[in-house]
């Protein structure tokens, strides 16, 4: 019961934060709301007993990445952007599409709820290891390859940002 309450609270943080992120005129406000949203996600992770992800979410996203974001925002001149109209006249089209997708998703989920049957889970209590250790095990055995590939992905992203930002190529 309490879990459910927390879930909805965090979900509200996530969605509300996200909504405010895109509707705020001031970029700094947007960034702050994004932090709120990300904290909500971290809370959801915690509810799932994924302590490691919770920590990572807080440290990396809320801590590292957001600080970087704010730096960029502060360095860029935002007065121009703030004066511009934020939404074009066709925002209601987007809203309509969004409502449609939401309705569709709701329909599907309600109709197909019975099908949320998970494959029988491996019995976790037998393992004395915590969530973090388990994650480490999986990451370096079964998911070794995606883990390594993620480093290639990061490398590409770094190369890309350098190429885009370098003064002269």
């Amino acid at each position: 019961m309490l879990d459910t309450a927390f879930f909805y609270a965090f979900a509200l943080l996530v969605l509300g934060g996200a909504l405010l992120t895109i509707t705020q005129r001031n970029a700094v406000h947007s960034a702050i709301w994004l932090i709120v949203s990300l904290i909500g996600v971290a809370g959801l992770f915690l509810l799932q007993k994924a302590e490691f992800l919770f920590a990572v979410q807080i440290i990396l996203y809320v801590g590292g990445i957001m600080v970087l974001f704010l730096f960029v925002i502060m360095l860029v001149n935002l007065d121009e952007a703030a004066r511009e109209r934020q939404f074009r006249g066709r925002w209601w089209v987007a809203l309509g599409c969004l409502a449609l997708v939401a309705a569709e998703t709701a329909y599907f989920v309600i109709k197909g709820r019975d099908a949320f049957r998970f494959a029988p889970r491996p019995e976790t209590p037998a393992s004395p290891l915590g969530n973090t250790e388990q994650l480490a095990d999986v990451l370096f055995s079964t998911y070794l390859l995606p883990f390594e590939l993620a480093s290639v992905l990061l490398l590409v992203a770094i190369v890309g940002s350098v190429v885009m930002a370098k003064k002269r190529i």
Partner: protein
Amino acid sequence: MPANLFPAPVEIFRFLPEIILALGGTLIMVLEALTGDRQPKNALGHVSLAALFAALVAAVAVHGSPGPAFSSMLLVDGFATFFRVVVIAVGILTVFSSYRYLSREGANTGEYYALVLFSVAGQGVMVTANELIMIFIGLEISSIATYVMAGLLRDDARANESALKYFLLGSFATAFLLYGIAFLYGATGTTNLTAIRETVLRADGPSPLLLGLAAALMLVGFGFKISSAPFQMWAPDVYQGAPTPVTAFMSAGPKAAAFAIFLRVFVTIFEPIGDRWEPIIWVFALASMTIGNFAALTQSNVKRMLAYSSIAHAGYVLVALCARSDIGTAAAMFYLAAYALMNVGAFAVVAYICGKGEKYVGIDDLAGLGSRRPAVAAALTIFLCSLIGVPLTGGFFGKFYIFKAALESKLIWLTVLGLLNSAVAAYYYLRMLVVMYMREPGEATENLEPLPAGLRTALFTSAAGVLLLGIFPSRILEFAVQSAKLFGR
């Protein structure tokens, strides 16, 4: 502790092409730092070619030992090998046609070649992936590298617009895909394609409705990536604005890879709900063909026209998907191979003509090419004939095979409408032929530089490939038919 911390050698071998590509990319970055600023960077391009060729050899060699690797993260089968070869070949042709263009624009840097390698590596991961996470990571590697390549010329406003649009919409599409993946995981409890398929086929598997939701969301993501209608809006602007060799690359390589995972996911996992998504794909296919072809009719910019035509061609491949049969899958594979060759070839010609700053990319700028550069014009003629679907070219045979598959699956209306569409398409391709052969040379063709060696290689290789696929399709067709039986269906 898990025992298989260290993968078996054969597993590493099955991943060899991507390893070579990633290492090659890294090596180029290091070499880039070591070479002086003033030195020409063509040598780095040669390194990337060497890596691509090595990867090609490896990809073919790996076919000798098919099977899963890295805890079934990836699966080397005929399908994977086929697309691996296609995307690597596209990479090779792209590098060949980039040398001159980049030095003309003063952007002949090592990073470009490294990004090509990384992007191809990402596509290699995509096509071999047997795991939704791998698909996602591969897609991101390929996409991010391509976004940056599109924005390589930072002083060009159009290129900036192109890169930004591509990036924003591409990320948006990936988000949809991820959403779909999340639902699929929720419904089946696994992200491994083989395991998902087993779960889905079980009597107590997830309800078709949930699968349908996942399929719908993933369809949006894939639809963006393959530029099928109604998610095609980004393609013309992006293709037009990006540097031409990059346009050639992204209209062929990432698209083929996206189609590969599209096919793999839809004909295996979502096969049980096939009659639910078939009508949607039907509409997508027809809309892509029609919108692409009719919008292309009025274009005056070659790159934009080819962009619309590539939307139409995505429609043809969707027809093959719509057939929901092994023949259809094989037809899509064959068509994508032919399409990659002819499209890269056509863009390579544009890269040759366009001049510094892409001044000459209008259809009218091709005027007189037939008399000034008959060999280039002949190659372009072959590509255009293939795009139209004139027999003895790969494009014709691919189209023929697709519509054969469609008719076998009783898609009579789609076949008829698709074929009529290809007759409409003939008109705008003909316009290029008209200008090329029947007009007097203009400013663009008067002062053409001699055909650089790299471009020549790219042009004539792809022209020969297009003809080969059209005249002697047997070998490749046989291979495609054998590999189309995904998961031993």
